[in-house]
């Protein structure tokens, strides 16, 4: 799948922000993370796909929030004080990713990234750009462009 969102810089190491969704562990390239916010209620948008949790006020701008759990085909994020919204920016687009909890910042050698196996049946697989193993846990690295809402609207 797309390699675009895996870090393009030549550094041998890549820093990832890892977070939990249910029992699974995912991560995004830390360079695309703008900030991490506590849970705030999002204003739901009519006629929006289920994974669009709504919009929140990010210091005067309207920020769409994606429920990453629904997006990846799992149960919705509960939406309580422990949940966080990761504000990410891809290109000119900014969006919030609602996740269960942020767990760690990892620095990994680029050589340890593996392409995900090609399994067409799994819908969440199209959102994953790479896999890696840290301390025996598998960590999925998200392809942000395919996760963000704009993409979804066009695809829908």
């Amino acid at each position, binding site marked *: 799948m797309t390699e675009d969102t895996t870090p393009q810089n030549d550094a041998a190491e890549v820093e990832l922000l890892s977070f939990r969704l249910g029992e699974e562990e995912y991560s995004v390239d830390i360079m695309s993370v703008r900030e991490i916010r506590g849970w705030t209620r999002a*204003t739901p948008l*009519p006629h929006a796909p289920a994974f669009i949790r709504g919009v929140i006020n990010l210091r005067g701008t309207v920020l769409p929030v994606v429920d990453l759990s629904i997006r990846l085909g799992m149960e919705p994020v509960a939406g309580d004080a422990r949940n966080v919204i990761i504000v990410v920016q891809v290109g000119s687009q900014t969006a919030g990713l609602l996740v269960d909890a942020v767990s760690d910042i990892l620095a990994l050698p680029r050589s340890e990234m593996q392409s995900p196996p090609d399994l067409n049946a799994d819908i969440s697989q199209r959102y994953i750009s790479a896999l890696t193993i840290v301390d025996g846990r598998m960590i999925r690295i998200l392809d942000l462009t395919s996760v963000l809402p704009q993409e979804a609207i066009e695809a829908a």
Partner: protein
Amino acid sequence: MSDPMAEIKASFFIECEELLESLQDALSDLDEGADDGETINVVFRAVHSIKGGAGAFGLDALVAFAHRFETVLDELRAGRLDLTPEAVKLFFQAADLLADEIHAAREGSREPEAAEECLQALEALLGDRGAAHRADAEDETEAADFQPMGLALDLDFDFTPEDASPASFTLQFRPDGALYASGNEPLQLLRALAEIAEVSIMTDASAVPPLDALDPEENHLSWTVQITGDVTEDEIREVFEFVEDVCQIDISSMPKSSETPLPEQPELESEPSGDTDEDEKFEPDAEANGPGPVDPAPPPTNEIAEIATEAPARTPDPGPAEQQAEAAKPSAAQPAASNTAPAAEPGATVRVDIERIDRLVNLVGELVINQAMLAQSVTEAGLPPNSAVNTGLEAFMMLTRDIQDSVMMIRAQPVKPLFQRMARIVREASSAIGKDVRLKTEGETTEVDKTVIERLADPLTHMIRNAVDHGLETPDMREAAGKPREGVVILSAHHRSGRVVIEVSDDGGGIDRKKVFEKAIEKGLVASDAQLSDSEIDNLLFLPGFSTADLVSALSGRGVGMDVVKSSIQSLGGRISITSEPGKGSCFSISLPLTLAVLDGMVVNVAGETLVVPLSSILETATLTSEDIRALGPSTNVIHLRGAFVPLFDLGAELGYRGPKRSYSGDVVLLTAQEDGARSALVVDSILEQRQVVIKGLQQSYGHIPGVAAATILGDGQIALILDPADLVQTASGNTRAIDISLAG
């Protein structure tokens, strides 16, 4: 910015825009039959000023074009050329080309190709004289190069040049303290004097004592005024009529500047004080008066020169005297100013970078949000309504609103330049397809947000072309239909209930509904057995993919469909609608919000969500009773309101917050109106308040949501959606008129 020449050049081009505008105006007047000398003069002056400025910057191509244009206009001005409609048409064409030339000069691009052709056509008007002028033109073009910045100067303003007439009077004016006590002001008197004649004023502040000895009630200043021009002594006396008994006035018909400071001479030496500016100004003037009676006594003049050099060293002594000297300054400067810029100024203006205004608009937007937050926390704090905090807050809110309105007014611009551009489109389009078309514009002074104007240009161009190309019949067809050969396209703008409505109408044949319908069936856009109302057929034009292949000529078939027009209008928060009458013509109406930054909205609650409905779309609110509601079809209701049936929509269900309710009895409805007058009733749970909200676009961060115009931030920091009732109703589900969904207009 570092290159001063580039800066001056930039301001020249801005000036050109203004000149072109007045040129267009005057030509339009001529076109409408205003055949007076003044209008022709305006045309001439505009072209001449452009030529003069262009010469100063060495824009040779522009100078050459403007000059030849000007030569023809000069003939017209001199009455040697008849003002025929053909000539006016050519002038319009030349004006358009002049605009192109200016554009080419600014961009450094190639000059328009049609220029030579047009000029030759223009010169053909002159007949034999043309050739001679052609020759002159070449010579004079050279001469024009020397013309320094003749922009505002070249107006036939009636003032007497300095050297033309001698000084007629010298006025000695020394007010008593009583003059001030009676509420008079020397500055006003001197200004009044400056209005009737050419004056040169010198302030004598030599009698002003040191600060500690100063009597603030007394006057220590006197003025000597050299009056030139066509005035009588009586007229001068008249200015001072009301202060005669509280001042000393001495009018002499010979220039007696020599006498003026004589009595104070010793004082002048010992204590030079006074305003240098005046003295310096006076100096050259005294000499300029020379051609008249020669100054008989040189010493005082020297004295004055001395003051001029010494005065800067003087420590300023603040006090009434200083203020008076200050006050006298403008009056002295005035005549000097009127020498250089005699043009009547239509109100002072400032050019400001649009980015600064945008920043201001954004800041005001933040201010409004903050004010709302503050108001909310004050309410939550439970302070009594008449407490100081609350009254202060109220004043604050009013101020915020005023600031907001003022800022919006800065951004607002008249649609006139846009309309003028459209006039050109009409001229070009009509000549391209050989139709006689007259564009009438109405409401040119209507002001609209600058961004809106900019983004309207493309859709409007397309609509105008459509009107000329498809709307109007050929002259022969028009004649056969008993209409004048010349078609009329009307472009109008006006304000209607908080929105701007721009209409493009023509007096052509109207929409050929049969043809449109057949076309739509052929394209598979509607079923062949569909029953469509007239307005539904009209709205088919806005469907994407409705290519009017065999209706389109080379002119308007440029790849922009009406669907593109519609979507660009919608992206501005506007709506477009069509009305058409066979044989009489059609009218496209665009309705736009006044500003893209704020709107007055009604804040309502629907299924626990807060929504904002634009106040401009709400006609009234009502509470439903069970008798009001009538069933229509299996899933839809109408309400019976004063004899009319209005479709009922449940906002909660339409927006997917909840399912339709079992009963709407007792619920609150907002009665909204669309552009075409259709009404609909929207059920809400409760109305919270009315207030101004700042519009935050959703388009960029998310995309278009059907029925939602934008979002805003409420006082508690939450985001509320701003509804677009017309859009909402058209995409609404609880509607049996299914065809409307695809024909959203």
